[in-house]
């Protein structure tokens, strides 16, 4: 009885997380505009960039920065392709756990892949399906040394805001809104 009372809320939250993931997983495509701000101790003003992001289930994520410079990041499977000006790099995410954590936090959320998220993070759900927050804390010690926490806010199956807090106090904030229908 006591146990049921104690764990009741936890299992309710657990149920909500499952519901959210199911909801997210139903979306096969996403196309949003983003604005990203980086607050770095080195700089006395934030760096701002903007562009668009596309998601195609199950594992393709493309982030195109249009301002202030054009840059494309394409994630397909574990392979990240970066293009900027003349430079073109292909990176295996497995070799870069920090970058992987940052990118997987967004992709797994979009995919509704709870198992994928929980492999890298301890996941904490707050709020309701109508207005939810996921707090993701890296499990890997090495990753923790650079990425402290990722916080994702959303409403229903829309991701609205991604905040990344780095261990050294720097942070970045990305706000998303649905692309105007083409």
């Amino acid at each position, binding site marked *: 009885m006591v146990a049921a009372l104690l764990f009741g809320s936890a299992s309710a939250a657990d149920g909500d997380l499952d519901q959210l993931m199911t909801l997210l997983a139903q979306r096969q495509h996403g196309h949003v505009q983003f604005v*990203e701000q*980086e607050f*770095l101790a*080195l*700089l*006395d*003003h934030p*760096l701002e*960039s903007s562009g668009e992001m596309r998601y195609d289930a199950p594992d393709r994520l493309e982030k195109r*920065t249009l301002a*202030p*410079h054009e*840059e494309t*990041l394409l994630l397909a499977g*574990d*392979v*990240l392709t*970066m293009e*900027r000006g003349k*430079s073109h790099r*292909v*990176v*295996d995410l*497995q*070799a*870069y756990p*920090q*970058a992987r954590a*940052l*990118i997987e936090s967004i992709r797994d959320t979009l995919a509704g892949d709870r198992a994928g998220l929980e492999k890298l993070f301890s996941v904490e759900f707050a709020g309701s399906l109508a207005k939810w927050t996921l707090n993701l804390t890296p499990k890997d010690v090495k990753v923790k040394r*650079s990425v402290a926490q990722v916080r994702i806010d959303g409403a229903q199956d829309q991701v609205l805001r991604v905040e990344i807090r780095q261990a050294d106090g*720097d942070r970045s904030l990305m706000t998303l809104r649905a692309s105007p229908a083409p």
Partner: protein
Amino acid sequence: MNGRRAGALIAWLACIAVAAIVVIRARYITDLSAFLPRNPTPTQQLLVDQLRDGPASRLILIAIEGADAAARARLSHDLAAALRRDPRFARVDNGEPVSEQADREFLFKHRYLLSDAVSAQRFSPQGLHAAIVDTVDDLASPAGLVAKSLLPRDPSGELLHIIDQLSSSPSPETRDGVWVSPAGNRALAVAQTTALGSDSDAQSEAIAAIRAAFAAARQSPRDGESPANAAVLRLSGPGVFAVAARARIQKAALRLSLISSVLVVTLLLAVYRSLAALGLGLLPVASGALVGIAAVALGFGAVHGITLGFGITLIGESVDYSIYFFIQSRHLLENAGRDSWQQRWWPTVRLGMLTSVCGFASLLPSGFPGLQQLGLYSISGLITAALVTRFVLPALLPRAFAVHDVTPIGNAIAAVLYPVAHLRRGAVTAAALLLALLASLILASHHDLLWNRELSALSPVSLEEQNFDAELRAELGAADVRDLIVISGPDLESILRGAESAVRALQPLLDAKIIGSIDSPANFLPSMAAQQARRDGLPNAGQLRDNLRQAIAGVGLSFERLQPFLEDVEATRHGALLGATDLRGTSLNTGFESMILHQRQGWNALLPLHAAQAGQEIDLPRIAAALQRAHLDTARVLDLKHESDSLYADYLSEAIRLSLAGFAAVAVLLLATLRSARRVMLVLSPLILSVLVVAAGLALFKVQLTILHLVGMLLIVAVGSNYALFFDRQRHADERDSQPLTLASLAIANASTVIGFGLLSFSGIPVLEALGCSVAPGAFLALVFSALLAPGGATRA
């Protein structure tokens, strides 16, 4: 035994003893040089050195297939780790960042000497401002995590610039931390041996070490890992090919010579029914082989493996001498006594031998040491074998010795030939002309594709293996070096300067994507001149302070945080310039050394060119023109494949010319001896016809002719001339009585030749197959045509 015979025996034994000593003390070489020119041009010399000992020749390409991706990655990791501890390997790359730490420290510490962006302009207020704004922009990208920590010391982003400069060439995809093929079905790695590519023994050891390390890695699975037992290792590369080819040729040579010896010995035993005759019959060949090797050792200073391998087949003709001697002298024994073999048949055997010698002499002026050696070997071997048959065999033969009577065989053959022999001469001649015309037409219609002008045609490596190698090279990207710019000079500094000038001269072509990228040793170690200029371009401490203050206005960086930058620049200004020794201990050293070739004549820098897109041809004439416009006289463009193919094509056309000259010499010799144009025509026509028919047959089967087919054609003429001469002699000496024996001896000699060469065509080694599939049918046809075309050549005894 009379005095003359004793003298012959003593002379023979003395010769054999001397030859044996020479053979034992001779130097034997197994490298590629038999296929490479004797008097190379500087470009060819470079090509030869590249093929033999260049960095590319020391590469072993490694593929791990089977099992699953995780198991392959783990095996790749363990294998590479084991090989990196092995001093037999200079470098092992499998995509893992091993020496990254040391490399990064070196590059970072010397960034202001290494970066080609460093100049007084870049360190002016405007230049610094532009560079810093770029670096700050980078902070927003995923690479920003690294850039952020480096920014206080490297605000102009020199490290990233250097890394881009070094890694311009494409590298394979990485998955699970190791290189994989684009399809993801195999893990890839490259090992570079410490030993030279031409050192087959060392290459063989290195290959064994890789296999052992792989086996050990497979035996020690990690917890929870999927089974790695299904994983297989596949190796490729020049060293792997050379070792495999050597083993295969040795194995095939051993197996084939065993089989053919057994077959020939059985044949001869069946014919002679005498062990003594068999033993004696092999004396001329054995003596010929020994003297042949000794002659090559004396004439060339060293004997090529290829000479040992092929030589014995080239003098297979000498087995025929003893066959003629035994069988024909049996007839004489019954009639006039053994001594008259020398009178009746020796002139014919001698003439046959001399025509062969003429044929092989055409190999002597070749620019191809392998062919020269084969020529000398065959000439000395055949002369020796003939002399032993003439002078030594009669001396050793017991009195009243006789081999089994083979007259019935001769009669049987004559019976088969009988109907043809009684055809009208005109009909036979017409048929022969028709056949020759038909063969010529076939050859003419295949003219363009008749000769294979690529060096790879001689490669003892199967097409499947060559394809696998090409596949791995394409997947590994940068490893394939085909087009190079070569810069020569008297010392390291001069070639590094040349490399810098060349890259500068080609920058417009790089920008226009005519070339994808150029690797240069100067990226790893700039010339002293360039380093000096970069160091001189750095402002002094006070100046830099002022410039930096102006540069960061409005960027949002605090000046205080950039103090480490000021310190590092100052340290470079007062530090020493870099020399080749400073690269040691980093993996950059291997990259650097692989592009530097230091030879007796001087220094060469090799700058590999990469296409802008995979599979695209690089416009070399345009590059050469650009280099010429920049007055870079020390720079040359080298297309390795084209160079080696044109080298081989030169040999081929030279060999064709020489063979024709050899054929003309044979004709002249016959004319001088036989003193009748008609007789010469009758002797030569079956040989020409055989060569034409064999060549046409090969063309019909889409076999492209190589230099070894050409050697095969020479052999057809050499062996066939004996047959034709016997028929000629028979016609003119009116020796109907001995005809069945002559026919039998020719048939048996021919059978042993066809057996020997026929087996070669099943060896699975392209070069041996080329010899086998031209000589075996050619020799048979030469006998048949000789018999049919001889007027009254085969009548019943």
